[in-house]
């Protein structure tokens, strides 16, 4: 196997693992996972609040 092919596999594994890890971390931090963007969202802090409410429960 060539070095490029090894790097390609590493890249693919990193992308998949990175995306999953980012989603899990975001969820744990109470951040929204909608990818709609908080800047333009009318209820962005509400996402956080919903999570906080759940935690409090």
């Amino acid at each position, binding site marked *: *196997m*060539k070095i*490029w*092919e090894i790097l*390609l596999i590493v890249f*693919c594994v990193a*992308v*998949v693992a*990175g*995306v*999953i890890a*980012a989603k899990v971390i975001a*969820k744990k931090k109470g951040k*929204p*996972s*909608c*990818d*709609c*963007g908080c*800047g*333009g*969202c*009318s*209820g*962005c*802090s*509400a*996402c956080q*609040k*919903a*999570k906080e409410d*759940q935690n409090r429960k």
Partner: protein
Amino acid sequence: MKRFALAGNPNCGKTTLFNSLTGSTAHVGNWPGVTVDKKTGTYKKCPEPVQIIDLPGIYSLSPYTPEEVIARNYVLDEKPDCVINIVDATNLERNLYLTTQLMEIDVPMVIALNMMDAVEKSGDKIDEKELEKRLGVPVVKISALKEKGLKELMDKAYAESKSERKGITVLEESALGHLIGDVKIALKGQNVQNPLFHAVKLVESDSIETEMHKETVQMINEFKETFEDEVFGNDFEALVADARYKYISKNFAPTVQKKKKEKFSMTRSDKADKVMTHKIWGIPIFLLILFAIFHLTFSEDFLYLGAIFKLPSLEDLGLLTAEGEPINYGVRWLACIYDGAVFSPGVIINNIWNDMLVGELFGWLGGLVEGSSMSPWAIGLINNGIFEGIAAVLSFLPPILVLFLFFSILEDSGYMARIAFILDRMFRRFGLSGRAFMPMIMGFGCSVPAMINTRTLADEKERTATVRVIPFFSCGAKLPILTAVAGAIVAYFHVGNADAITFLMYLLGIVAAIVSVLLMRSTTLKGETPPFIMELPAYHAPQFKNLMAHLWDKTKHFVKKAFTIILASTIVIWFLTHFSFAWKFLEDEEINQSILAGISQLVQPLFTPLGFGSQLGQYGWVFVVAAVAGLIAKENVIATFATLAACLVAVANLNIGGLDIAAEEGIDAVQAMILATGITVPALISFIAFNMTTIPCFAAVGTAKAELQDKKRFNGTLIFWISASYVISAAIYTIGSWWWTAFIWAALIAAVVCLIIWHNKNAQKKALKKV
């Protein structure tokens, strides 16, 4: 850091002011209820940085709506250093009602008279010095939109925040003045903070206050028993409201000098509303506008000029080679704009983006990879797995942006609020108020904020019904599915127009939502439809800055999604289609032995009644994979098609022959699927309907779970999504394939309706017997 809260009526310009002060791009809409929760940002031009808190729009500090509770709790509990009360100067008297309540809280306060540009334009004048004197609170004239007077406002607010302020009330001289004074003293004795505010609310019989100060309530009730007003009787809330308005009319209204008008004249907005909100023409006009938007975005025959004038194609003009390629670079550009018809603006932008940019870029990258010394599997992974998936999704960026540009124009102009008003009459018959339409409209953008926006609905059952149908309003992520499949139907079967199919699918979503709500509200989610009162904002020209902010936000997150979650999904799908259960690497021709094929073929029969199950033969499982991949993110459906289409093209060369398809465009990818599986038009429409109405993406499911809170209701929602999508898609497929099945469906619907009527009558009888 100091904290300043922005408080005011809905649609008075708080978020516009917030964006101007903090440089944020928070969503601004020309309809009440855009902001449902507080947002924070920083203003840096004061001697020290100031945190700005944008509170949701409210009419009063009574706890009737979630927004009112949020705003009230923030001002009372978080104790900001200053409250900037934004007042719509074009509607001073009504806006000052909230001001009189905020004044009762012990917090520094400044009043910002917003929209002064509109007041001056109409020829009216406001004496702000006199108003300041009468209110006892600093008043600054501003225009948040034109960013005028903001520095002065912030300087005044900063100066005010340094000193303490005690609450004052306009009710002192009213019939309740004495009682309020006594209650205030009693509360002060109990060390209650903001005693004046709490005293007034206790007199109003505010539910939160009576719960908090039980011992004081008795004293108030004793007084109330001896008090009777001629007009309002014992309704103390109405009595307080009346006293406030009387005071405002008497003392504050004279500070406004209205331009003398010879007779009553209608504003431009009023004149436009006579047509746009007409009780008969309102809905047809709305549908016409919606169709025009889809025509401008998706039509390959702008204004149907090609069909009307029988315009010649590029081939007729001899501008194509024998292989059907443009004869030179200039004709390539011309082909983006014209081919037998002038394309609509959306299609022109789309063609330029795909043919001249994305296609070129990924074609070049693919060529580089092909020419490298890498193994065939690595070339396949990069070209088919990564490039095809991303390119197919990115190819839909232009139609999404054009469509959302039009939606943003509708929203910014104030027309969206009118749609809620028009639809209220219709929605009310089905058990929803027009207010529920606002989150549904937001669902066209993304289901997640739309579901959060349902917090503005006070009735829990109405809220649940709305959350359940929001995914039926096709979000931006579903647009690639619609466009690709509709485009492929037109290109492959030569059936209909892409704009008409897309428009009809959007309508199908709206109709499905209405029918579902009707069913839910007459069975499991029965309840009163709350009244809908909404202030219609004046029409105004959309702000370029706002429109661009919306589009930039959309682009940023679409591209980010393509290079994260879509990229990861396409890699996983490529691996699963190129390895067998025995962990053996498979060539493109062998994908039918892959892990993905094995699993998909197991569940494939379930989709047979929907038209994309077992009847599609050996490659039919690709539709099942696409539909399931869509649960992660709906764009994945097309990315999956593109990845699998690249493999199928290789298969087709062996088994089908003569297939010439570049799968990096979503529409071509779907055509490859049609060729390989033999799927029919009704089955393709059923496939779109299934993806539109089934369980939305994981993010939306998570939001629904958080918003509904009740586990039983959430499970019911999941079952509802699965069954609704199954029934709708099955009906479309069977009626489209065998027209006579329409009678069977009609009989089934009639039976369900009869069952509901019978059930409701039975329930009524039982209730009567109990009484």
